[in-house]
């Protein structure tokens, strides 16, 4: 098993903030907008260094999305920042008409995604955002797994021409990918090669998948682990190459099983190579208050849930 080391727990939103700091220094067209959540989005350094390129919109997310669309007319590359819930569901029609249908180069950057937002509870824990965003024609959807990858993704989307949804989270989690990685949109990353089962994971569930794989390998099961940081466009080839070898798959995501990564993978498999699949995801439910760890455990989103899903899918081969 390929060994991955936690370089020290950190939050993915701080990876976004670090990426914004770098973009502020290197790309004069990048501008940032925020709806009264500067501290949560970790963009204070960008603001301090580029005050003229920052727009505090106030608690008015619909207006923020429209202003971002307008800023692209004149060549700016706007990055909007608020929680995932307010970045998607609250402003779906603004994104649909003014950004996606209008093909505007807006980067929708969403923190506090998923259930690991924790104690604030279900009003703020969106588990539907990947589905909402991936259904929009032309929208790229990215959910990086740790601090380093989120920073790399933030830099990469500035170079991509077109609307992007970048999803990251609140809690400090393992930071295990290389600091100097080059982020390629739409390219799956092979984290561990195996022959018995494929785990395809995104976001916070990637590290949990590695923990699960290590335990399973100790039981004599050969586990392939793939990090799908880009849910759309999906790396069909990487998925098919792997399942043709292993013959079964577990998908893992911090999102509802309706509309998430798992369903996207199912579509690829059903079309090209029908394969037994188990879904590690929330089961069409809202979240609740609690610590991130408690919630991941209660809603079946951790390494234990992934191990159980692997054992189940192996029996279906």
């Amino acid at each position, binding site marked *: 098993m390929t060994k991955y080391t936690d370089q020290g727990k950190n939050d993915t939103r701080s990876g976004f903030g670090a990426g914004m700091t770098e973009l502020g220094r290197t790309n004069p067209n990048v501008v940032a907008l925020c709806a009264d959540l500067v501290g949560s989005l970790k963009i204070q350094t960008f603001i301090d260094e580029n005050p003229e390129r920052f727009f505090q919109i*106030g608690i008015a997310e*619909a207006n923020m999305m*429209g202003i971002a669309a*307008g*800023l692209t*007319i*004149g060549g700016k590359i706007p990055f909007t920042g608020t929680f995932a819930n307010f970045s998607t569901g609250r402003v779906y*029609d603004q994104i649909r008409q003014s950004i996606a*249908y*209008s093909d505007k180069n807006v980067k929708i950057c969403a923190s506090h995604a998923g259930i690991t937002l924790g104690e604030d509870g279900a009003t703020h824990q969106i588990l539907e955002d990947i589905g909402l965003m991936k259904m929009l024609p032309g929208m790229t959807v990215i959910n990086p797994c740790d601090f380093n990858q989120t920073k790399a993704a933030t830099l990469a989307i500035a170079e991509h021409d077109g609307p992007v949804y970048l999803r990251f989270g609140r809690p400090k989690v393992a930071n295990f990918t290389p600091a100097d990685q080059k982020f390629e949109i739409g390219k799956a990353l092979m984290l561990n090669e195996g022959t018995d089962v494929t785990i395809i994971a995104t976001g916070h569930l990637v590290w949990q998948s590695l923990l699960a794989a290590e335990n399973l390998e100790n039981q004599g099961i050969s586990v392939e682990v793939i990090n799908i940081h880009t849910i759309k466009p999906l790396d069909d080839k990487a998925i098919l190459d792997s399942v043709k070898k292993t013959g079964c798959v577990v998908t893992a995501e911090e999102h509802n099983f309706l509309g998430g990564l798992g369903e996207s993978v199912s579509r690829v498999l059903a079309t090209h190579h029908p394969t037994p699949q188990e879904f590690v995801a929330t089961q069409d439910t809202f979240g609740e208050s609690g610590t991130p760890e408690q919630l991941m455990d209660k809603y079946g989103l951790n390494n234990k849930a992934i191990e159980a899903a692997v054992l189940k899918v192996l029996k279906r081969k």
Partner: protein
Amino acid sequence: MPNAQELQDLVTQVRRDILRMVHKVNSGHPGGSLGCTEFFVALYNEIMELKDGFDMDGKDEDLFFLSNGHISPVFYSVLARRGYFPVEELNTFRLINSRLQGHPTTHEGLPGVRIASGSLGQGMSVAIGAALAKKLNGDNHLIYSLHGDGELQEGQNWEAIMYAAGSKVDNYIATIDLNGQQIDGSTDDVLPLGDVAEKFRVFGWDVLEIENGNDLKQVIAGLNEAKSRTGKGKPVCIIMTTMMGNGVDFMMHTHAWHGKAPNDEQLETALAQNPETVGDY
């Protein structure tokens, strides 16, 4: 620059275009289009500084955003007659494979359109963003936008109205088409708007009014006055009173023609009231 008679002739021709476009496909929105014909003709032929040709970024020229996208017939006619695309293309309005979609969009690459609109209440935010980009680029040109009065019932407008004043977006002129009508009836019956001018004022805008938005002279004077008030720390709002269906007697004084096309006989009557001037497409 065209003289007053040429502009008035163009207004009449644009009215004909609107009527013929919606009649051909038996759909579309003639009422608001006819009410705003003078505004569009004035804006694109007298007021805005425009470059030749079209590019999306629109640097070094004035830009216009249509928020109430359902009045696409007047927008398309004026764009075509300003040279953005061939006037013959007006024949394709709302037909399959056309660039002239029911509501304006950038999706098919129609020159002159910079944002999709139709789902109401979004255009002011976009216009503000474009105005901010102009400031960042050191571009002293202006942003114009048009909004229906009924459209102000959408809450996003009030976020944008608050923001534009609070952030001193003073290179921006928003015009409200105050025709008092919406699909289900008069605005007073559906959801009263109150004193729209006063609302903009208390939000911190510089507000002026055009009493008769169907009088070309008044429209041009009002737009020029608005221009002179830009750059002074406040966004500028024009409250422009218009008559929905203006120029066609049976379409006026009613909301019935908001989204309804004339039949053959009605078209004939309407065109007779607006004789051909610069030439039908």
